[in-house]
Structures are given as structure tokens and as C-alpha cells.
């Protein structure tokens, strides 16, 4: 089959490209292009109803689904694995990031491979966290009460350098189980470290009975049984 580029029969194909695509300049030095999409729509409408951007009827949902499938497909490819490395388990998850006074749960996909544990953000194509399995020296499953009344489970890891990492996954116990299996298979040893969970818990919990919180500027402090 030979491709065609006859200026009449493929005008719409050209317009699709020339009006919606091309190199994007993120700069203040570009003049406002507010009128441009309008030009595109008008021009297309004029082309004997060859298409309307919003009307694809029966296939709409399906089209979105297949395109989602495709982009998911691409993303999975986008994470670079080492040669011979295989993914053992993959699930949505997050990890507790803290740097100075900034703390946040960072969301992404957790990949457990036969040599690493990785948290990857597919849209940003960024590795948020990774560690070789060999560097995991301890782990524990911590249970934390949530304000919703449901308990949530986090996986705390103690790394070789003494860092503590807290992960949460869609199915955290399953992740822990798979990780334990992985470490065992590699002949690695680790410790169950129950007191990991106590570390830096204050900011995440509600005050208990007889406690109250006072605020002074941005600092919150808890006082035990303080009476007014």
C-alpha cells in the first residue's frame, strides 16, 4: 500500500496536524493564540461535515478505553528495568516523603522486581523511590488508625544506611508477603523491627484522651493533661 498526500483528499489529515500539533513553545514570548482553535473548528466545519470533533457516537467509550489501554501499555514500557530484571509484583502505592519540614505521601506504582523495590510515577516518568533488595535490613507492618474509622496498613522498611521508609500500597500485606518471599529467595536476612512504627508518629495522629493541642504559629505541640 502506498501513502497518499494529495492536497484535497488529505486536507483534514493535514489540518489535524498543523492546527493541533507540532512543537510546543512554553514561553511568555509567544503572542496569544486565543483565536486559533476557533479557526480550526470553523475551517473543519466548513469541510463538508467530514468530521466533528465531538461526535463519535457509538464508539466513544470504546475509543477512550482503547486509548487508555494503549497509554497504560506505553507507560509500563517507559520504566527502565535492568537487563534480566523481572517484575514480580506491581500495584498502586505511595511512599512517605519527608525532607526538612515538608512531608507528603507520594503516589505512584510500586514495582517489586527480583532485585529492586521501586516506586515509579508513570505520568512524570520519574522514579520516586528505589532500593536494591539487598539493602533492606528490616521491615514491619504497621497499623495506623485513620479518621475514617478504618485501619490502614503501612509497610516500614529499615534500610542499610539506617533510613526508614514507609510505604503504603493498594494491598500492603500482599506487598509485604511478596517482599519477604523475594528476600528469602535471594538468601537475604532481615529483622522484624516492631518499633519502627513509633518513629515520627506525632504529626499523623489525633490527640489521645487527656491531651490537647496548642498552636503557636506553625508549630503544633501536644501537652499531657494540661489544665486550664
Amino acid at each position, binding site marked *: *500500500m*502506498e*501513502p*497518499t*498526500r494529495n*492536497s*484535497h483528499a*488529505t486536507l483534514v*489529515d*493535514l*489540518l*489535524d*496536524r*498543523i*492546527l*493541533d*500539533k*507540532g*512543537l*510546543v*513553545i*512554553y*514561553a511568555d*514570548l*509567544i*503572542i*496569544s*493564540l*486565543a*483565536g*486559533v482553535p476557533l*479557526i480550526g473548528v*470553523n*475551517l473543519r466545519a*466548513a469541510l463538508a461535515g*467530514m*468530521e*466533528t470533533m465531538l*461526535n*463519535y*457516537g*457509538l*464508539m466513544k*467509550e*470504546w*475509543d477512550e*478505553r*482503547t*486509548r487508555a*489501554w*494503549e*497509554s497504560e501499555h506505553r507507560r509500563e514500557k517507559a520504566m527502565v528495568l535492568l537487563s534480566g530484571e523481572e517484575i514480580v509484583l506491581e500495584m498502586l502505592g505511595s511512599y512517605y516523603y519527608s525532607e526538612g519540614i515538608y512531608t507528603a505521601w507520594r503516589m505512584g506504582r510500586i514495582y517489586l522486581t527480583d532485585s529492586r523495590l521501586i516506586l515509579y510515577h508513570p505520568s512524570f516518568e520519574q522514579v520516586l523511590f528505589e532500593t536494591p533488595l539487598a539493602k533492606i535490613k528490616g521491615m514491619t507492618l504497621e497499623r495506623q488508625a485513620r479518621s475514617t474509622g478504618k485501619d490502614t496498613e503501612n509497610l516500614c522498611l529499615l534500610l542499610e544506611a539506617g533510613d526508614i521508609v514507609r510505604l503504603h500500597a493498594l494491598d500492603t500485606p500482599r506487598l509485604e508477603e511478596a517482599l519477604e518471599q523475594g528476600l528469602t529467595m535471594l538468601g537475604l536476612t532481615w529483622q522484624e523491627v516492631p518499633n519502627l512504627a513509633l518513629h515520627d508518629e506525632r504529626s499523623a495522629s489525633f490527640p489521645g484522651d487527656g491531651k490537647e493541642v496548642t498552636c503557636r504559629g506553625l508549630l503544633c505541640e501536644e501537652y499531657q493533661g494540661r489544665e486550664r
Partner: protein
Amino acid sequence: MQYVDKTEVTPRAETAVEEEGRYLYCIADAGESVRLGEIGIAGNEVYTIPYKNICAVVHNCPAQPYQSDDQEIVKAWVMTHQKVVDTAWDMWGTVLPLSFDTIIRGESEGGSERNVQDWLEQEYQGLTGKIEKVRGKAEYGVQVFWDPKLVAQNLTETSPEIRELDEEIRTKPKGLAYMYRQRLENLIKREIETKADECFKDFYSRIRKHADDIRVEKTKKAEQGLQMIMNLSCLVHRGKYTELGEELDKINRTEGFSVRFTGPWPPYSFVGGA
């Protein structure tokens, strides 16, 4: 049919403070300063602004977007834009095309020419990276259509569930038959979507092998009762589309399916994004 750009050179405003701009056609893989003649939109002279081994293909214009209610004029502008990009593409082999009506303004000292140079300098790494990615390559459009009536008919013959329901309808009284028909239509719709899904995945994996990169575009409304089930932009070495063409031939020969194969286009779909 030819679209001839008969529009006049945009008249300059009389005021001295009129801000100047540079209309950008594309970034080319050459560090040359060249005049390409009066081939630009509205007959403007097109030339290049070089930085190191790349250059911007531009013309001088007021810092206002080209706008018109007259579709013929806009059509002529768009075709002219494309012709300039094509000219640069033929000349230097690799270009990063910009979309229609991208104009760099000239507020800073030294005006918009300076701004273009500064921008090329700032973005140099990203631009050369993109040039490497599309070097010597072209974009080909692949659209796969099918005839939904034919597919539905085939499904009625092959799916036992549908055939059963179809036969049951004949035995039902009118009112009930109507409801049954609704059920049948839903069932067929679902089956068609499943089938479209399968075809998409099958064709996608077959086409993917013959392209360096692929973008999946939204499907569009088609004519003559056909339905577009797949709309792709494929990045392929310019002129080396034989294998892709053969694969498309196979799909095109499958009963009920047809393929549109367009190009070569400058790689519009592969230069966007950060």
C-alpha cells in the same frame, strides 16, 4: 486542487511603536543563514535565524496572530504554512514543525530576532534532542475503518447467544418483542465493542513492529456508513514505508476492513510535549 495564497502582505501600522514579531514555521537541522524567498504567508519573505547547528525558519510580521473569518483565506494560510515547512524539510532533511500561527514577540531589547535567538539558545538541548529523535523520519497517518453493519451481521451468524435471542424475538408478541429487540441491540453493541477491542490490539501490535514510534489519536466520524476503529500516527524512516505498507495491505484485504494511509508528513505528532 491548489490553494493559492493571494492574500496581501500584512500592512504595517503607521505608528512607530508597532511591535514586531517573528512567525515561526519550523526548526531545521542546519546552522545556516538563508533567504528562501517570498514564499511565506501573505507573500512574506522567509529566512532563517541560526544558532549553532540549528535554525528557526521565520518571516517578519506584526506581533498579532493571523486571524480571519474568511475560510478561504485561512485555508490558504494553512496551506502556505505547510508549503514552507515542506520546503525546509526537503532542503535540510529534518525539521521540527510548529503549529499554525506561532509568533514570537519582540518586547526585549534587540527585538524579536533576538528573542528567537535567545529561545533557540535556551531550548538548544531539548530541540537537538528532538531533532535526533526524528532525524530522517517522517510521519505516516494510518486509519482503519470497518463496516459495522457487516460486523453485526457476522456476529449474528457466529454468536450463539445473539442468534438465540434473535430467534426468540420471532415467537414473542409485539410489545415484548420490542423489549427483546432492545436487549438484542445492546448485546450486539457490546459484542461489537469487544470485537473492535480485539481488532485494535491485533492491528496495533502488527503495525507497531514497522514503526519507530506510534501515537494513538482519537477516532473520528467516518463517511459512507463506515466506522473508524483506529487512528494512528506512525514515525517511520522517510520513504521506508514498504513493510508498513505491506502490513496495511493485509489489513485492507480483510473482508469488511479498509485502511487509509497518508503521508509523508513532517513529524508533527512526535515533536510536542516537553
